[in-house]
């Protein structure tokens, strides 16, 4: 009984981690460089392989064979621990996100737990440690300032992140992420009321708070993953690189890996919560044959890729906020907006009993 569970879970974990996430991370970095180059009207990395497509592989090899250097002033144990702590939470959060329906009757989610979204937030909140410890253990000014700034920013936006998703669970009535997807299959995607039973007027009314939720969640996700316009922790012009200034070779790569995995995990959660997960109108789920099961997975990751492209696009379009603006925006505007939004949904549900 347990051995089958362990074997199938291990297959899914290894498959997701090494076949999907890691290649996705390296090609997101590549895409980031190419897209930024396109936006700034320059070629970008185009020499390694056709159109520079082998660039990520060259980068991995380079990062591996670089000198593994530990500066003298650092607190060695924590200096080594920090990159691991920064990378692990984002990998672990992916476990509860359903990335497909079923394939050969095996559910395409690593762990279908009843507290789904809370797992994402709880493990995500541990990501602060990697950054704080990294900044502190480096025993240098810039990393220290970057670490403190970053943790302050991350905990501030965690509030908006947590509040933004409440309306969804008021509608679904369960915290399990597969139930959220199932609800959206039955009633249409949360931010796209024209899918499913579009003639229902209450659904169109509910789409307004859902769009607000989506907006707040997305902005908070930008802040959580330290992406521009909220990349204060590693603002090059002020902090020389932030919490990973003193890091090199694979330890630096792990910080980067964590950042990009967090981006992918965040996009995956967003797709699951607001964009219907693996569902696409007209495509049946995996119980109708393995080809559909596979298509569902492809649909899910296509949506994730679209969101990742949006992340990159925003990064190279918007300027950076100032720290006081960032905090004011998080604590005043988004926090209040998310709270009002919750009672808006509560009011709609109380009036219409949907």
């Amino acid at each position, binding site marked *: 009984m347990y051995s089958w569970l362990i074997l199938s879970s291990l297959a899914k974990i290894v498959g997701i981690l090494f076949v999907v996430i890691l290649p996705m991370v390296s090609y997101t970095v590549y895409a980031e460089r190419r897209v930024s180059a396109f936006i700034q009207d320059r070629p970008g990395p185009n020499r390694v392989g056709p159109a520079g497509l082998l660039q990520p592989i060259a980068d991995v090899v380079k990062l*591996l064979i670089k000198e593994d250097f530990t500066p*003298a002033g650092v607190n060695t144990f924590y200096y080594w621990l920090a990159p691991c702590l920064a990378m692990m939470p984002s990998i672990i959060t992916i476990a509860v996100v359903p990335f497909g329906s079923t394939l050969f009757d095996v559910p395409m989610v690593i762990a279908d737990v009843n507290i789904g979204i809370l797992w994402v937030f709880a493990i995500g909140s541990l990501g602060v440690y990697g950054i704080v410890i990294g900044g502190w253990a480096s025993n240098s*000014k810039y990393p*220290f300032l970057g670490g403190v700034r970053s943790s302050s920013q991350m*905990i501030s936006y965690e509030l908006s992140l947590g509040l933004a998703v409440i309306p969804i669970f008021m509608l679904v009535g369960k915290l399990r992420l597969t139930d959220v997807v199932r609800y959206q299959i039955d009633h249409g995607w949360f931010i796209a009321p024209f899918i499913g039973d579009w003639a229902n007027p209450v659904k169109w009314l509910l789409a307004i708070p859902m769009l607000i939720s989506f907006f707040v969640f997305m902005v908070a996700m930008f802040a959580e993953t330290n992406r521009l316009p909220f990349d204060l922790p590693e603002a090059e012009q002020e902090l020389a690189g932030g919490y990973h200034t003193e890091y090199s070779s*694979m330890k630096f790569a792990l910080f980067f890996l964590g950042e990009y995995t967090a981006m992918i995990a965040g996009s995956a959660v967003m797709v699951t919560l607001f964009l219907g997960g693996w569902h696409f109108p007209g495509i049946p789920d995996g119980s109708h044959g393995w080809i559909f099961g596979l298509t569902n997975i492809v649909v899910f990751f296509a949506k994730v890729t679209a969101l990742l492209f949006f992340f990159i696009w925003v990064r190279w379009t918007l300027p950076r906020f100032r720290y006081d603006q960032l905090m004011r925006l998080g604590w005043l505007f988004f926090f209040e907006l998310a709270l009002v939004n919750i009672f808006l949904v509560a009011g709609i549900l109380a009036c219409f009993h949907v």
Partner: protein
Amino acid sequence: MARDYLPLLLQIVVAIIFAASALGVSVLVGRTGKRTRAKDMAYECGMIPQGEVQPRFSVKFYLVAMLFILFDLEIVFMYPWAVVYKEQIAHGSTIFWSMLSFIAILMVGYVYALKKGALNWQK
């Protein structure tokens, strides 16, 4: 139901192994270079490091962390509320007013913090 959670444990173990092996491979494959005094120095854009290593920072950072804990508690209470809201609202509006008054009480503290400038970073 505890069975559902076993894969999470496996995921954690795989993540730990992955992180450790990535660092291990880098130690094995990576070149070793000479250590020099300048290389061991903390990086300050090429200048010689000066002043205290850990600058004192504003009390605002603590304030934000403490306020975060308090408002995080509020969010924690909101999850069970959200889960049961739809079925309870059919039996009467108690659940709506209960949460509204809870939030109203907390908002008194929030407004107080705002008025006292606790969240004002410009000063």
